């Protein structure tokens, strides 16, 4: 039934992807990229992947735009003229042809007898109600069946944020001159651009708390509907970033200090891993939540999933806000000292 809709949205998607590649003005490309992300979230919904669409929506609507734009503010918003090169086109066509040839053996789209649906998925779906009593199967698989994967992914988020911190927070011994001071410097610069837009300020004071409230809802309602730690973290971070954009970094720093975020970033992963260790102490295996409650295995699993999702949410929130801190703080530091040729000055 959704077949024609999918086809049309796919067409839009390809058009926007081509435009992203083609547009030489990187700012325009960033805008079109936002549209691309909206379209892909729509497609995920049509393909039944509501949780994926939810994440894409939360990430694509706010954070990724902010990220690309703050990079553009630090670099050049225009791309150089460049002719089409034929060797890459040939390579790409070759790869594409090979992949199309590879799909010929694949089961058709939506085929219920495809091998992917035969192995573990039925057990997961079966277990959702009997083992967990949690209607959102994705949450079960995320936090419990595939708990190791998710722990790894959360750690990757932590690691990437630490990488950003090392790259943009300062070089070498720049801990002294690191994030705190860069953000400090931002405080003097920041209030200028936005304070003339009274309306944005007023509406942000109304909307930011609502976004946070909704983030909490997503965090704790993730067992029953689409949502969970990853989405909630991104939504929560968007509220804080919105505040930072409108009222300036120094104001955001008064709300959450970078130091606090750094602690939270690590604490989230620790909560996750700690839940696993706690189950070890209760004679279970790592990340086996059933032993967390003596009386009912189902309650134990509920508790474990709640804790794990909380850890994920905390880490993701702190990671996103910290990334914003470093990118935006870099901009202020740069405009302070325009001679940024010196490699040693952080």
């Amino acid at each position, binding site marked *: 039934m959704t077949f024609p809709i999918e086809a049309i949205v796919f067409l839009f998607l390809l058009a926007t992807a081509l435009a992203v590649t083609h547009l030489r003005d990187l700012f325009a490309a960033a805008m079109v990229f936002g549209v691309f992300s909206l379209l892909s979230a729509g497609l995920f919904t049509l393909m039944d992947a509501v949780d994926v669409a939810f994440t894409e929506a939360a990430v694509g609507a706010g954070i990724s735009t902010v990220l690309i734009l703050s990079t553009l503010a630090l670099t050049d918003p225009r791309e150089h003229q460049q002719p089409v090169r034929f060797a890459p086109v040939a390579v790409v066509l070759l790869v594409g042809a090979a992949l199309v040839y590879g799909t010929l053996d694949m089961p058709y789209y939506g085929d219920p007898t495809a091998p992917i649906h035969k192995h573990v998925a039925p057990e997961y779906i079966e277990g959702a109600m009997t083992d967990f009593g949690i209607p959102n199967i994705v949450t079960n698989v995320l936090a419990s069946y595939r708990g190791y994967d998710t722990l790894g992914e959360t750690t990757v988020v932590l690691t990437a944020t630490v990488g950003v911190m090392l790259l943009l927070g300062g070089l070498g011994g720049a801990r002294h001159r690191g994030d705190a001071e860069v953000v400090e410097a931002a405080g003097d610069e920041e209030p200028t651009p936005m304070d003339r*837009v009274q309306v944005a300020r007023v509406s942000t004071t109304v909307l930011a708390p609502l976004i946070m409230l909704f983030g909490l809802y997503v965090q704790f309602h993730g067992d029953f509907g689409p949502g969970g730690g990853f989405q909630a973290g991104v939504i929560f971070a968007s509220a804080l970033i919105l505040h930072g954009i409108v009222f300036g970094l120094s104001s955001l720093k008064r709300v959450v200090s970078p130091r606090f975020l750094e602690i939270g970033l690590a604490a989230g992963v620790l909560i996750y891993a700690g839940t696993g260790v706690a189950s070890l102490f209760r004679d279970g295996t790592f990340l086996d939540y059933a032993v967390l409650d003596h009386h009912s295995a189902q309650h134990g699993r509920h508790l474990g999933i709640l804790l794990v999702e909380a850890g994920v949410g905390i880490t993701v929130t702190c990671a996103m806000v910290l990334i914003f801190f470093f990118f935006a703080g870099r901009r202020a530091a740069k405009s302070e000292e325009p001679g940024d040729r010196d490699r040693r000055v952080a």
Partner: protein
Amino acid sequence: MVLFIEIASWLLLVGGAGFCIVGAIGLLRMPDLYSRTHAATITDTLGAGMVLVGLALQAGPNLTALKLLMVLAFLLYTSPVSGHALVKAAYSHGIKAELDVPIDPQQVQIPERPARDAPTDSARGKEGADDVSD
């Protein structure tokens, strides 16, 4: 009652979709940024509003309907704000309304448009825009 709800949501959905299309045509065909904003923001409120209310009627009185109405409330709140901020940013960037430009034979960019017949009005409109800001 059921029939009434069916008819009402048909009307709202089709009407809302119609308004969206009209606004999008405006977005595509209007001569300058300010009139395009006019067309676009109207679809965001009226078109989206009608579609959402139509869907909420179909959902019946439950949480889904409430959420749809909340979506509508947020849209009614954010879309004028971003529209205002956008136009203000454009204005401070020196983007002129099409009608603001005094008739200049070299500057006929859009041939299929009918002649701009009221340039004097627009000068007043520009001052008005100054008052509106802030």
